[in-house]
């Protein structure tokens, strides 16, 4: 087979390639909508990012200004605060939320075959499918100082009610808690699936050797969760520049804005509300480049650790 190919003249190889393309012409026609879509909605905006290096004008040519907007960006004191907020909120979410789905899956595993497990799962997965607007509506009620369940609880144990949503300190914790509330159940699916996939004979063999439940958990279950744990953790690190735009836009208010203003909300505000297109595009380009570097490097780290990449 190989011999035939190497002896074939280059000309024929080239023409058979075109023959293949021609015989597949219907396939390429079927690909036209996708190509058009990606060209218009993905490639064109990427080309549009050159705005970061130009002065935007509604009429006439944009003037090339090089790195002017990046210099302005890095010399703005607000921007360092924005970066700080982004990293703090992301890191809080990453560290606090990461173990919850794993613990949740481990707990569920203790109730493998019951109706109880199914009921817990049905409720726990639901918030993942609600929009952040709806979740904000639910949480505003939940945290309401006058009638909310949380403050009813505080009052019941003799503590004064607290308005978590307008306090600069507690608002970040509200972001973390509502994110956990929304996604912890759903994110546990992959870990639960991994636990369910463990061969039961391993447990039996361990019991025969005198293992207790703690041994089973640390020596059998946790090692089986290693690959999904590494994959999901590194994936989350890769997206650390995204602190959660939809969520923050719906939980923000004037009194807390300075402590939860992140790159995405900043870009939205100065770009689309104040129409400083070039400046906003520069901020976004900075974010996207860091994001790509993070995603690619965590992909390779994940590959090194588990011999599997993130995709």
């Amino acid at each position, binding site marked *: 087979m190989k011999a035939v190919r190497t002896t074939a003249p280059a000309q024929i190889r080239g023409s058979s390639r075109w023959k293949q393309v021609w015989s597949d012409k219907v396939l390429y026609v079927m690909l036209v909508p996708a190509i058009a879509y*990606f060209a*218009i909605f993905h490639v064109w905006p990427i080309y549009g990012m050159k*705005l970061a290096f130009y002065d935007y004008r509604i009429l006439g040519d944009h003037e090339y200004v090089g790195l002017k907007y990046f210099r302005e960006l890095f010399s703005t004191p607000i921007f360092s605060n924005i970066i700080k907020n982004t990293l703090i909120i992301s890191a809080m979410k990453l560290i606090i939320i990461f173990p919850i789905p794993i613990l*949740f899956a481990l707990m569920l595993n203790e109730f493998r075959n019951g109706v109880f497990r199914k009921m817990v799962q049905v409720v726990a*997965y639901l918030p993942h499918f*609600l*929009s952040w607007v709806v979740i904000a509506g639910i949480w505003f009620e939940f945290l309401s100082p006058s009638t909310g369940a949380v403050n009813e609880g505080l009052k019941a144990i003799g503590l004064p009610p607290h308005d978590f949503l307008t306090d600069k300190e507690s608002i970040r914790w509200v972001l973390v808690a509502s994110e956990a509330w929304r996604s912890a159940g759903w994110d546990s699916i992959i870990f639960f699936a991994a636990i369910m996939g463990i061969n039961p004979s391993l447990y039996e063999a361990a019991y025969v050797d005198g293992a207790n439940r703690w041994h089973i958990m640390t020596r059998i279950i946790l090692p089986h969760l290693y690959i999904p744990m590494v994959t999901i953790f590194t994936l989350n690190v890769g997206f650390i520049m995204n602190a959660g735009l939809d969520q923050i836009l719906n939980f923000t208010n004037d009194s807390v804005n300075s402590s939860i203003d992140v790159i995405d909300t900043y870009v939205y505000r100065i770009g689309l509300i104040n129409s400083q297109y070039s400046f906003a595009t520069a901020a976004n380009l900075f974010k996207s480049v860091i*994001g790509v570097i993070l995603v690619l490097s965590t992909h390779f780290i994940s590959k090194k650790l588990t011999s*599997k990449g993130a995709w």
Partner: protein
Amino acid sequence: MTGKKITVSKTFLALLLSLMTLSMFVPIVNLFAKSLSHPNQVHLLRGYEVLPRGFSLINFEVVLHNPIIVRAVMNSLFITVTGTLLSLLFTTMSAYVLTRKKLVGKTPLMVFLIVIMIFEPGIVPEYMVIKSLGLLDNLWAMVLYRTINVFYLIIMMRFIEEIPDSLLEAAKIDGAGHVKLFTRIVLPLSRIPLLTIGMFYAVARWNEFFKSSIFLSSRDHTVLQVLLRQFIVERDTTAMIDAAELLKNSGIAQLDFGSLKAATIVIAMIPILMLYPIILKYYTKGVMDGGVKE
């Protein structure tokens, strides 16, 4: 002795899990209770209660008599239904093409898709594109925007790869071209992934709020999530006042804005709750069966 120890820890775990579940369940059900309470008694409803006070459908009546809300619901439905169908068609079609083994140019195409998946140009260039296309304040902007999700495309490709070659070869010998292979064999065999991915496309489109708030500016083209944000986050009740006027002659002295808000949130949740059983049935089963091998 050990047996007793296990039941104690198991009871503790059951309690902990129940508590976590209740923290998710109660706030949602409380909202339903609020929307179904009578306007004169709703102030008695505490945040942890799950039953309405003085059952009444008046809040829903008010909300659904409001032309602005009805319009927003219709717009959301249009975007969700049209967008999901388009997404499914384009995604499956390109997944079929990209799984053909002899396709010339497949590798560069896949690299291109991965690049697109991880590089986000951001909102300003996207806004400019929509503007250049003349699609600002047009519902089609939201239909076309994010039609193909690369991640779902790859999932679909993995599924189509599982279809036995012999099946396609046999049809080819009988004279079927690619279009026939796709419509007569691939699509009918892909019902389950179509349903699963379709659910996700539909949920994402129904829930989309940020891009809708930017691309759609006029009141006629607003969608439910954007309107909800106005009620909930900005506490802008102007759209509700007309509705309250409408109800003056129904014998109720005053409507409670909180329960009107709750009724609107409930309306926004209904499609999700309707799709939810299908999501649970197909997706979680798919992960349980397929995720294990990963």
